[in-house]
């Protein structure tokens, strides 16, 4: 039982981190219509900044710089590339983002090399044990912080004028601009938010039980893509729920792989996509996606 609970707690905390990443995908998509395939390298940039700066300026200051840096990077990508696209074609933008990702990743790989840079977090390799359930302290902190961040996001989007304006712009940009909402601002805010969320997720993905910042970290952002898609592409709540589902299912599939060996090895790799496809078969627009079905 405690084995099950341990795996579950692990899956939930990992799922919340995936949720942070997936929400970033959603916000960029709804605020500027871009499938942001450069999200992984933005995440890596944030984590990299923390890893190289925690020694000279201290961990918490480095975290602030890392989050701000990733947010700024997002804003820059939006300002320099996305807004200057002649045509707002999602395909073009997505391919452009792939290019940005390759560029950033190559540079970061060059800087990091084959080293693994420790993130320098105060929780190190500590674990917390509660009623037989063991969880790395970093994961417990991540889970708590993610819930807090989601709460703040809710407050932003539901209670502040700018948040409501962002939602309005996401729903119908043309009309929103008739209300005096500047799409350039809501777009920039969307990219900044996504970058900040990615950096937070990156810090925890590079914390124990992972070894530190390595180029492969950028790839782990893509584990959030099934969460994003199954949540419904344009729904923040969907992204969070999707993250939790993918996190738990992955943890359980790996944890019980021995019992599930008739399904083959390497199950954890496949399961997120299998779940995503299953959900899409039942609900083609995802769990919380806006229904695009025919309305007369």
């Amino acid at each position, binding site marked *: 039982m405690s084995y099950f609970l341990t795996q579950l707690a692990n899956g939930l905390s990992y799922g919340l981190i995936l949720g942070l990443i997936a929400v970033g995908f959603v916000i960029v998509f709804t605020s500027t219509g871009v499938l942001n395939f450069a999200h992984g390298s933005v995440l890596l940039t944030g984590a990299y900044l923390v890893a190289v700066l925690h020694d000279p300026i201290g961990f918490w200051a480095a975290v602030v710089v890392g989050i701000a840096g990733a947010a700024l990077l997002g804003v820059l990508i939006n300002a320099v590339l996305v807004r200057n696209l002649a045509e707002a074609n999602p395909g073009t933008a997505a391919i452009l983002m792939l290019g940005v990702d390759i560029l950033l990743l190559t540079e970061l790989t060059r800087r990091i090399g084959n080293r693994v840079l420790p993130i320098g977090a105060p929780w190190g390799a500590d674990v917390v044990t509660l009623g037989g359930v063991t969880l790395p302290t970093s994961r417990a902190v991540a889970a708590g912080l993610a819930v807090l961040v989601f709460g703040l996001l809710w407050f932003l989007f539901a209670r502040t004028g700018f948040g409501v304006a962002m939602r309005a712009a996401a729903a119908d940009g043309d009309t929103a601009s008739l*209300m005096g909402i500047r799409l350039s601002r809501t777009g920039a805010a969307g990219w900044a938010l996504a970058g900040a969320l990615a950096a937070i997720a990156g810090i925890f993905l590079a914390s124990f039980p992972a070894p530190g910042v390595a180029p492969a970290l950028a790839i782990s952002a893509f584990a959030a893509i099934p969460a994003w898609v199954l949540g419904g592409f344009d729904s923040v709540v969907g992204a969070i729920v999707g993250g939790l589902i993918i996190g738990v299912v992955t943890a359980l599939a790996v944890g019980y792989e021995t019992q599930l060996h008739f399904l083959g090895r390497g199950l954890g790799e496949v399961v997120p996509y299998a779940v995503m496809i299953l959900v899409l078969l039942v609900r083609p627009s995802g769990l919380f996606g806006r229904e695009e079905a025919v309305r007369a």
Partner: protein
Amino acid sequence: MPDPLLSVEDLTVEYGGAVRALRGVSLSVEAGSVVAVLGSNGAGKTTLLRAVSQSLGSVGGRVTAGRVRFDGRDLARHDASAAVRAGLVQVPEGRRIFRDLTVEENLRAGGYTVRDARARRAATERVFRLFPILAERRHQRGGLLSGGQQQMLAMGRALMTSPKLLLLDEPSLGLAPQLVEQIGDIIEQIHAQGTSVLLIEQNAAMGLRVADRAYVLEVGVVSTRGSSAELAATDEIRDRYLGVAAPDTDHVVQDAPPAAAAHLQRSTPARAQELRVEDLTVRFGGITALSGVSFTVGAGTVHALIGPNGAGKSTCINVLGGAYRATSGTVHYGDAAVTSLPAHRIADLGVARTFQNISLSLEASVEDNLLVGRHRVMRTRTSAQALRLPRARREERAERAAVRRIADLLGIAPLLDRAVHTLSYGDRKRVEMGRALASEPTLLLLDEPVAGMTHGESAVMADAIRAVQRELGLSVLLVEHDMPFVMGLAERVTVLDFGKRIAEGTPREVQRDPEVLRAYLGTAAA
């Protein structure tokens, strides 16, 4: 005399550097007045509003000459947001409320530029006083409101910034007569509170009722201007936009034999059959959209379905076309049970439809959209077309000729090469109708076929429908708010309210039914 609040001087607007939508248009709105712009579809009315509100960019338009001065300032080089901050707000065509946001959040988005929280609260209170129904539904999502309430929300949202000038684009579009009247009253109230209004209307009666002055826009130029009273008195306006000499059925049929009628021919022998709707009930979640509705559309007749917004008319059409499933009850077309067939099988029975929210390929040309409609009746296989075999080429020529005849009939032949997204709402309606006709249906379902059209245009549409109905012997079931149109065309009328049938009979009988007057037509029709 003080400067006008808004002055448009010699304005020329182009789309994509090719189409000139406005050519040297000038107009002015004095502070404290209501000005209406009338005109047919495609005349450039919406373009004019977008040019004023500096929102042409998002639809690919550009001001190439002339200028827009508002409150003493040249608005060129400012964006839509700056225009809003200067006190000029546009309510877009089709309402365009934020469906996933609550009523309150919609208003909040509208008041985005108001920095002062107290002013925002006061504005909200003012909007709620103007539209009490919105206060009641403040926590509901915008998408759940009825059409009329959505129009109120769209107007309330624009009023949140307490603008000096309100631009309204077709506020009565798709609304029942009673609601049109109510919206007119509200515009007068807004005006009375000191906001100037520039209004675009296809419903000229409403437009002239509320406006002090009016302009008539025709193919990008101002053709007539004057006070509302002067304009309402001119013969041309009465004829084309007001339809005062409302024609009765016989008159039109004898007087205007449609020229193109003789050219239409079915490529397959198919005959209209009787459509029987029996005890039809549709529920979505907890909401009952239709409850035990029955009626029969005789083979080869025109039947209208009318009723207030949200009465269940579109739901009914959607069940007949196969888009929605019936919860209970049956629909038979001839011997076939429509309620148990998927949409494409229903199309095979010869049932074609148009949509309220128009569903066309926007990038494709009008001709291609119409050719899509021919798909059902074309004989050559795709492979033969791909190989461009002689037989396929012959057929393609024949198909293009057929499509041209339909376009002539609907008056859209000059538009055949245009991409659909460059067309106005009303022209798109006609293209959609053309596509439905192209499939040579035996039963045609029309959802608001003349919404957004002037009286003159809807008369052309009525002629066209009558012509195809006679030539092809098809049945027509239509949903429409335009009463002169319905009364002049339909042989029988079924009236729905809150998902129930409240009356049925000939147009004359229905028009006198007190229940119908109360629920739908309102005082204007009495």
